[in-house]
């Protein structure tokens, strides 16, 4: 029988043993090993290669397939659904094994949509209180501007003489329709209809004024300004929906940016600069 170890030696051995255990514990924890057992989850009905199918999943599938919760079904019906869930789980595991989730374009798209939806869900459901909205509106007033709008008539003639006669008539522009719609138009639309030169000339007119004949390659034009609505910042009461939409849009973008920044920080990303440099973009 061996003699008892001296006390300091015993302490050293105990310490080493504890350190070894701590090392094992750290290795086990850092391995990410997830041991699912029935004791962890009392709702688990069946486990397939450690992947549980829970009562909650059964209820969800039951609602989806029959429109009723699982506890209203007969044992046979429940078993049919469970069998379906087991088969689905086996196929999903097969998909994982084959790397389909990352490779199939349809699955990739749906994954991206689902992750974004999850990341921004909180932003979209949170109610916006009036103070927050007003503060946002005050800080971003320039976004809620109703642009300059012009109500203009434009007439085209084949010759300068014809245009001059129309301008001199007691009741001008009786013989033809305006080239422009009667509703007020923002500047960019006006440019689309008339081009840059005529639009610039129109901007020099005041309400009720008619331009001198203007010779253009496709004819001679007369412009008549009916009304000018100056650019104005919409009050919050008028722009409420726009402000809310912009507030949520920015919140959504911020949530997504934050998530992507976090994912980038945790990821190992390598750009193949050499391969990129060899590409011919001409």
């Amino acid at each position, binding site marked *: 029988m061996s003699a008892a170890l001296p006390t300091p030696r015993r302490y050293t051995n105990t310490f080493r043993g504890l350190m070894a255990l701590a090392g094992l514990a750290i290795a086990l924890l850092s391995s990410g090993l997830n041991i699912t057992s029935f004791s962890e989850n009392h709702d688990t009905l069946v486990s397939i290669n450690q992947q549980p199918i829970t009562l909650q999943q059964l209820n969800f599938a039951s609602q989806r397939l029959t429109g009723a919760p699982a506890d209203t079904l007969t044992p046979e019906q429940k078993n049919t659904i469970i069998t379906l869930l087991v*088969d689905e789980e086996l196929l999903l595991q097969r998909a994982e094994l084959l790397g389909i989730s990352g490779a199939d374009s349809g699955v*990739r798209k749906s994954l*991206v*949509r689902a992750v974004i939806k999850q990341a921004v869900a909180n932003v979209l459901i949170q109610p916006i209180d009036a103070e927050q909205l007003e503060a946002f509106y005050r800080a971003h007033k320039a976004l809620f501007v109703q642009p300059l709008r012009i109500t203009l008539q434009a007439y085209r003639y084949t010759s300068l003489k014809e245009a001059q006669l129309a301008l001199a008539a007691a009741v001008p522009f009786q013989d033809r329709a305006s080239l422009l719609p009667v509703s007020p138009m923002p500047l960019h639309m006006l440019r689309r209809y008339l081009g840059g030169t005529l639009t610039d000339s129109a901007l020099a007119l005041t309400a009720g004024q008619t331009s001198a004949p203007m010779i253009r390659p496709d004819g001679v034009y007369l412009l008549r300004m009916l009304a000018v609505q100056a650019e104005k910042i919409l009050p919050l009461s008028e722009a409420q929906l726009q402000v809310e939409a912009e507030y949520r849009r920015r919140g959504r973008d911020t949530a997504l940016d934050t998530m992507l920044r976090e994912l980038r920080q945790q990821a190992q990303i390598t750009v193949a600069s050499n391969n990129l440099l060899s590409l011919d973009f001409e």
Partner: protein
Amino acid sequence: MSNSARSHRAALKLLLAGASVGVLLGALSALSDQSNEVYLSANAVASVNHQEIRLAEYQRALGLFASDKRELLTEDDRSLVLQRLIDEELLIQHGITSGLIRTDMVVRSAALESVLAGLMIEIEASSGDSAEKALTDYLAHLRATANIEWAANWVAP
């Protein structure tokens, strides 16, 4: 020199050797991290957690971007497209690790459709059986080879 002093020196030497190996491994690991690009294949433009983004995928994305833009693509445009592909890969990997393949019904359906479509192609190519019978047999095979444990309070079908 006493036995105790000799064993103490041997222990110190071992400790020193262990520490040196640790430092060497750490340095090698750090160096290999810096030269990761070496391991990217010639037809990859980037890798995200060792998942490569293929050159063809990048060129397809550039083509789509160019079709929306009237002018020629700039260096910034190309960089933006690459960063968006990296973002996409990060989101996909996050979705996979979050288990969305099981919890999100749209993703789940897409994954199941994809695996079933692949199976159908295999079945059509390899066997004379009807697709339904072949699928039933395949599922039976998967069930037989899987570790399926039923809860004690559940009567397995």
